[in-house]
Each structure stands twice: as structure tokens, then as C-alpha cells.
């Protein structure tokens, strides 16, 4: 299946992926400024940017073939679609128990402090052709491609 990969040697740690991810998942998907300034809550990205002295990394859900989060979910809100391979959270069903946060071996699920539901990368499904973090990465450090592991 298609996954987002990080060429960390070219990640500049700018965090634009976070900004665009947060925006496109906000009430104002096409306007960064409105997303951050008009929305009553600060928009949340669904990915993680890590930085240290020598490098940085932008990571999002790996869409595992053996998804620990799906197995751990107590409500059945997290499912892996057999057709697309996409692991997605039904935010309507999620009760924010955080069990998936512990389950995810990469620690790539976060809790929306406002909605109290789990947030994870949805590959911009139904929003964009290619995940926005990939298209907006200023240094092409994120790529979206089929890759057999």
C-alpha cells in the first residue's frame, strides 16, 4: 500500500508539515490564517516532528500491516481497511481512552485535548490526492509511495 516515508537526511525540521496538516484538517481547510485565528480551538496536526542537535524527522502513522492500535482499541473505532490498507479512527466512536496511544509502537497517535478523541494520520483521505505534508514539504523530504517491506 501507499505510505508516507521520511528522507530524514533532507528534513529541515521547519514544521510546515504540521501547519498544513493541522490546517487541512481544520474548519478552514484552505486557509491557514483562518484555521489558526478564527477557529475556536487551535488546529491539531496528525503527525509528529522531532528535532535534535543533528537531525530532524517528520513522522506520521505507518499504516501497519499488523496494527497494534486496531487490536488494542476498546471501542472498535480503529479499523484497517482491507481495500486501501488505511488504518483510520472513527472519531465519532472513539471515547478518548488513550489505549491506542500506548499500543502504537511508534507513538504516533495523539489525543485531541478539545474533543478528547484520538488523532492519527488519515493520509488526507477524501481531502487531498496526496497527503498535504508530502505536497507541502519545502525540501521534498517526505514522499508518498508504494513500498513493499
Amino acid at each position, binding site marked *: 500500500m501507499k505510505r508516507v516515508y521520511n528522507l530524514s537526511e533532507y528534513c*529541515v*525540521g521547519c514544521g*510546515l508539515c504540521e*501547519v498544513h496538516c493541522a490546517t487541512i484538517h481544520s474548519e478552514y481547510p484552505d486557509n491557514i490564517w483562518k484555521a489558526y485565528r478564527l477557529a475556536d480551538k487551535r488546529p491539531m496536526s496528525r503527525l509528529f516532528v522531532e528535532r535534535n542537535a*543533528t537531525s530532524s524527522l517528520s513522522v506520521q502513522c505507518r499504516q501497519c500491516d499488523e496494527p497494534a492500535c486496531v487490536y488494542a482499541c476498546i471501542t472498535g473505532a480503529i479499523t484497517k481497511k482491507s481495500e486501501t490498507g488505511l488504518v483510520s479512527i472513527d472519531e465519532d466512536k472513539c471515547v478518548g481512552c488513550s489505549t491506542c496511544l500506548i499500543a502504537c509502537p511508534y507513538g504516533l497517535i495523539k489525543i485531541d485535548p478539545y474533543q478528547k478523541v484520538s488523532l492519527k494520520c488519515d493520509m488526507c483521505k477524501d481531502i487531498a490526492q496526496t497527503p498535504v505534508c508530502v505536497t507541502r514539504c519545502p525540501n*521534498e523530504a517526505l514522499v508518498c509511495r508504494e513500498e513493499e517491506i
Partner: protein
Amino acid sequence: MAVSWRMPEYKINRDKDRCIDCQVCVNQCANDVHTWDEDLNRVVSDESLCVNCHRCIVYCPTRALNIEKWPTAFKDNANWDSGAIKQLYAQAESGGILLTGMGNDRPYPVYWDNLLLNASQVTNPSIDPLREPIEIKTFLGRKPARFDPSSDEFPPQMELDIPVLFSAMSFGSVSLNVHKSLARAASELNVFWNTGEGGLHRDLFEYAANTVVQVASGRFGVDAEMLARAAAVEIKIGQGAKPGIGGHLPGEKVGNEVSRTRMIPPGTDAISPAPHHDIYSIEDLRQLIFSLKEATEYSKPVMVKVAAVHNIAAIASGIARAGADVIAIDGFRGGSGATPLRIRDNVGIPIEFALAAVDTRLREEKIRNQVSLVAAGSIRNSADVVKAIALGADAVYIGTAALLALGCHLCQKCYTGKCNWGIATQNPRLVSRLNPEIGSRHLVNLLRAWEHEIKEMLGGMGINALESLRGNRLMLRGIGLNEKELQIMGIKAAGE
């Protein structure tokens, strides 16, 4: 401690209304201008550290930032302008030589802009590059004075599909990703890139066919392997940005890779002496040229690069007679990663004059057709290339133009090692900012664009082969030049 009289150079305007405190600027500024203030719970900026590199402005997703000159003015003074005053303050505080980066930025005339090109009207047809082939392939190297049908010996040539080479920039002064970008672009375009004095990193061996390796006064990284992995060898005598001055790569830039490539211990300063200590006169140069030819079994052209100085015509003629196959002349606008400000701004002569004088002299000496001439020192666009070739160059070197294509914003702070564009730095976090994929793509785009423009200009002149433009000074006219300047460049005035 006494208060510093120096004011910030720039003023940063952050549009509070547009800023969304995403901290992208904080993450991108290597000079720590922008920081997140826990107490104020927003991003704040300290202008005194700003070098105006535009990284934050380009990256700001809401265009909340802009930078202007620090508005405070000195009393108007045509003699003591603000630059002169600030430089004096700086030296009064530091007691040191003023360093700077990139090329001469003083308002000397740019003679390219005083030259106008010709085009065909009626009496002969201009040629449409979209319909007719226009050839700009160029060969650099020694040429026999006459063709000998009986012999199949022929001196080695560098073949360029576009008459442009990337200037020498050493690994150390620039990042490995710059070299990767240049090398990839050079091989895709079939032109050449130049290692500069830092040696050739092993990752770039595969680009040998398009690599010029440099032998300079420090002899860093020079060994049999390096010579073997190149298409040509360049002896660097001088550089337009600092004629008569050596180089100095501070120890903190000498990391493991640089040390390995330069063949010096990590962390040690890399000092290139002003002269080659085995070249104190022209006959010494001849010896080095021929020892390099011996070492490469006469299979690779040997280039000699000199800065454009007052007596350049005689010097170039001497270099030709010393056996150089290609002579590269670097005008006083040539760039540098670090050079003393006073030298950069006051030493050398314009490439336009140097080139014209050398071409004329070599023709008087009847040897122009036997050596190749490469002009360097701020070639800014395809028109400069065409004008340089009409004045007599075979090809041109571009350095600053190439760096701009890689993202350089000419802030002239290369020597600090904190290049926010990942170019003039060895800091891994910063180096990663230049993705060679993008870098080489931009370089290829740039030269392809120039290629189209060069062909348009040639076609307009009714010329379909670059060699017919070389030294074809009738295609040039001068504007706003005095008799002497016209005479030096060997061209007529517009209207003549």
C-alpha cells in the same frame, strides 16, 4: 563593558495579525533571531542577530514577516556614508580585519550593461531556433595551429553542450550537498563542475567525466585517485574576490568528511598560502603544469585560473606559453566564501576589460586559437554569456549564479558557517536544507533556460554555430563608454 555603537543592520517587521505562532521561523533561523517566549506565549525576534537571509520570510506560511534596513539614518555625508562609519565602529571594537562573503558589491560600473548585441534585419535572415538547429557545443583544450591529416594524435578536449562551467567552490567552504547538486547537474547537462581546493569527496567519483579537480596552494586532497577521478585539472593561482590572498578554512568547519577529503586532521584550520610555494615565477608554473600532465599521461587538459589584475594580458600570454590548455580569468566581481572586505572591494579589474585585453593580446601573439579562455567573475545571465563569448571567451564560469539557483540569498555571511540555506555550512542540521535532488534540478533548469536564450540571441544575429560568435566583436556595440573603454574592448559605439 563599554556599550557597542553598532546598531542592528535590519529591522524585522512581524505582522502580529498574520503571525500564527507556528514557530517555523524559530526552527529555521540559525542565528537565533526568532525565539519562542514562554512568558509572552508568542514568537519574538531579536533583530541585532539578523543577516537578512530571507529564510524565515520564504518559509513563513502566512507571510507575516518582512525585513527592512534599520531605519535610523546618519547625518547625510557623501564622504562618510553609513557603511564606512559602521565598518569603522566594527574595527574600533574588534581590532580585526573585516571579513565578508560573496563578490564585490561596490557600485563600480558593470560593463556587461554597457554592451549591446546585434540582430539581423533584411540584409540577412535571423534564424529561428525553433525551426533551425543552432549549435552551442564547445570544446575546451589545446588546439593545434593547423590540422595535420597524417596524424591521429589530438590533444585532450573538454566537451561542453552549453558554454558554461560551475566555478570552483571547495567542500568545506560549501556543503557536500552543494557538490552533489553541482556534480549531478553537470553530468545531466554535459558541462563541468569544479571541486575547488577541498578535494573530491568519494561519493562524487561517479561524476568523473564532468569533474574538474583543483590543485591550489594548499594542495588539499590532491592525490593520484583524485587526479584519476577527473576530466581536467585546474591549477588555481588566484581568485577574483581576493587576488594575492590565500584561503583559510576555520577548524570548526573541518568535520570528519571534510578532513577525510582534504586529507588533514579533523578540527585543524586549513590554510592555503597566498602563493604556491613551488611557484615563484612563470617557469615554475610550467613545471607544475607538466608534472600534472605527466601524472595524468597527457590525457586531461590542464587549466590555470588567475585573478584579473592590471597586467593580465601579459600574464595570460605567459600562462599559454607555459603550456596551459585552458586559461580561466576571474574578474574582480568573483565570489568567495570568505575574503577580507578591503581586498574584495579594491583589488583587481573587471572581467570585461581583462577578457578583451587577453583575447586581443593572444591574437597579437597568434596563439589565441591554440588555448581556450574561460571568463569568470559575475556572469549573471545568458546575455552576459553571449557578450563574454563575443568579446573572445570560449566559455564562462558561474559561481554566484549557481549558488543563487541553489537558494543563496546573497546575505554575504558565508564565512560565519551559519548559512541558513544549507550552502556555506557544515552543520548537519543546516546541510540537510539543501536537497541535491532539488538543487540539481534548479541548476539544470537554469542552464536549460540560458541555453534557449543563448540560441535566441544567436539566431537573431544570424549565427547558428557558437564558434562564429567567438571574438566576433562586430556583434557588440558600446553604450555610455568613452573612447578608451571602447578601444580596450575593441568594439564600436552604438550607432557607429
